[in-house]
């Protein structure tokens, strides 16, 4: 059973397509995160689900109901806006109870419900205040309260944490996830922050230029990115890339001039999907080891000499920026006891099993 179903949804503004052929089926209670750089169409997609934007092509269904043509106010969808969009002239209580008032709920009943929600969010003591008298985090809670008070079929959240400071953002992130799991309401969450995407979503939709790049669980997105864009966008620091050479006739893959040992299954996949010639290889910074040139090399790893350009201390680890003799920049995440210094010459070693191979069209092959 699906709860939210977007089928071949497109949106054009004038001559340009902001969203192209978007398909998504969300199960009841699922937390879907739309992520991508600004201008990728994620917010437009959300606004189409909300009914704030017309759909150029395709259909949107909520439960069994096709809501493509249903006006926003009849969709039973609640949204948390980036700037909260609280009603400044109303008290917190009236803000939360507004949707109930519009639905004709009696004053007593709606105040009762609003108080319950305020208690859930820990803002009971703020009910009499106006939004301008609240801190950013408190406003955020009121915006959440306004969304959950009427138990909508669907939650939409448009970068709700982007106006909060870093510490509060992490706290609210966890709180929103807990709240969503507790209420079990299907949620679509838009963000450009890949950490939010990875930590919050049951599934992630990665978008670029209006086109879905990949839909999958955080693990799928991280471990098996569909293409180079996804691989680069998700993960900090981003995945390293290096050019290699593939010769299909010899089943030979070379990186930094050295042959990469291939399992037969992997070789078969490459033969089937990749034409001979230059290709891209990717590997994550945490799968890189920096070692002195004297240490013995292993058969399952491949090495390149590098020198250290910069070391960033992030507390529990060190992010080491290195450069190969040919000028390629490669990042490594090292343990906090890493003893190298800027300018040191070392060997950078990559485990072959963690190599991602991308074909000439930037799609991941293996």
């Amino acid at each position, binding site marked *: 059973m699906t709860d939210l179903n977007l089928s071949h949804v497109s949106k054009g503004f004038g001559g340009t397509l902001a969203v192209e052929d978007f398909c998504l089926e969300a199960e009841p209670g699922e937390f879907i995160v739309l992520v991508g750089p600004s201008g990728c169409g994620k917010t437009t997609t959300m606004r189409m689900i909300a009914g704030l934007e017309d759909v150029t092509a395709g259909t949107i269904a909520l439960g069994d109901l096709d809501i493509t043509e249903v006006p*926003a106010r009849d*969709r039973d969808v609640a*949204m948390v806006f980036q700037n909260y969009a609280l*009603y*400044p002239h109303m*008290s917190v209580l009236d803000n939360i109870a507004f949707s109930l008032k519009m639905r004709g709920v009696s004053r007593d009943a709606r*105040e009762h419900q609003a108080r319950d929600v305020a208690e859930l969010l820990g803002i009971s003591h703020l009910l009499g205040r106006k939004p301008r008298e609240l801190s950013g985090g408190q406003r955020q809670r009121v915006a959440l309260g306004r969304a959950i008070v009427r138990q909508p079929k669907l939650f939409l959240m448009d970068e709700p944490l982007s106006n909060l400071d870093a510490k509060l953002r992490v706290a609210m992130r966890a709180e929103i996830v807990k709240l969503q799991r507790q209420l079990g309401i299907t949620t679509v969450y838009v963000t450009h922050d890949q950490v939010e995407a990875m930590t919050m979503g049951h599934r992630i939709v990665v978008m670029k230029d209006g086109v879905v790049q990949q839909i999958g669980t955080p693990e799928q997105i991280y471990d098996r990115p569909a293409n180079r864009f996804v691989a680069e966008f998700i993960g900090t620091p981003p995945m390293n890339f290096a050019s290699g050479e593939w010769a299909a006739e010899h089943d030979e893959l070379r990186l930094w001039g050295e042959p990469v040992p291939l399992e037969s299954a992997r070789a078969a996949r490459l033969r089937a999907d990749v034409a001979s010639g230059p290709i891209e290889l990717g590997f994550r910074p945490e799968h890189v080891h920096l070692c002195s040139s004297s240490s013995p090399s292993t058969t399952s790893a491949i090495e390149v000499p590098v020198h250290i350009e910069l070391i960033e201390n992030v507390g529990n680890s060190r992010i080491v920026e290195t450069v190969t003799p040919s000028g390629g920049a490669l990042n490594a995440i090292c343990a906090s006891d890493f003893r190298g210094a800027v300018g040191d010459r070392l060997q950078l070693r990559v485990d072959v099993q963690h190599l991602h191979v991308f074909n000439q069209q930037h799609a991941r092959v293996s």
Partner: protein
Amino acid sequence: MAHFHDSIRRRDSEYKSVDSAGALQPAAAARSRRGTPVMRFLKRHWISYLFVLPAVVFLVGLLLIPIVNVIVDSFFNVNLLRPDANGFVGLDNFVRAVSEPLFWSNVWNGVVWTVGSVFGEFVVGLATALLLNQQVRGRALFRAIMITPWVVPIVVAAMTWSWILNGEYGILNAILRELGIISDNVSWLGNKWTAMLAVINTNVWRSFPFWTLSYLAVLQTIDRAELEAAELDGANALQRLWYIVLPKLKGITLILSILNVIWVFNNFDFIWLMTQGGPLNATETLAIQTYLLAFEQYRFGEASAVAVIMLLMLLVAIGLYFYIQRRRARRIDAYTANKG
């Protein structure tokens, strides 16, 4: 200029001598004890007063002196036809003005004229602002057209409407006859019952763009997300207008109302140009009466008394308005505090 630098330097050093806890250091405290407080204040701020002096001179010359002059005159017998009888007469001018047979009907006409005009301007101004705030093609052109009445000089507006409303050859009569709404011409400005409506109409036509502009300026500051939030909360267009948009226009409406009550109540030119207070004094207001007393009968003392009465009436009306507003705000605050 040397003085100027001096005074700045002196101020600087005084600031410096205040320590981190904000207490005056002994040296500064001793210096600040010199001279009376007023002298010290002037010594420190004389340059600021020099800069506002030109504005003060203009205000005193153009506003304060005439007002004081009128108030003084209202207690004297100032009659240009009988210069020999000048002198202090106490409240005589006021008593005589109030007992004029037309005084109370003029007060009533002034209230109708003011309330009718301001209400009409409010309704038309709000409606046009809401319309012009819509996303429509050619919006800039519509906006430009809507402003036109405001740039028309009052005398032109009054003349044009006098022709439109003319009882014999006015185009309004022609249109209404054509549509079959009236069978005989109506003398809009010559009829006791329609004259006031006609002048109010002209005033509203000329003045509403100021309201439109003011409302439009506020409407454009409204966050679109707020309206979208209300839409998703289930509010229809009318409810969004009522609960989200109109509350934001309260402040500007208050200001516009007060300004326009003052302007309209004191207005002289519209009525004078169109009806001169007629027919049968149906459109005569206190402003017209003041003019007639002063410049047709040369009874400046009584004219001043009527003008002072107008001033008092406006002060009372506006004071009352603020009082009610404040009391209402307090009541709402108390209500929300109780609820919270």
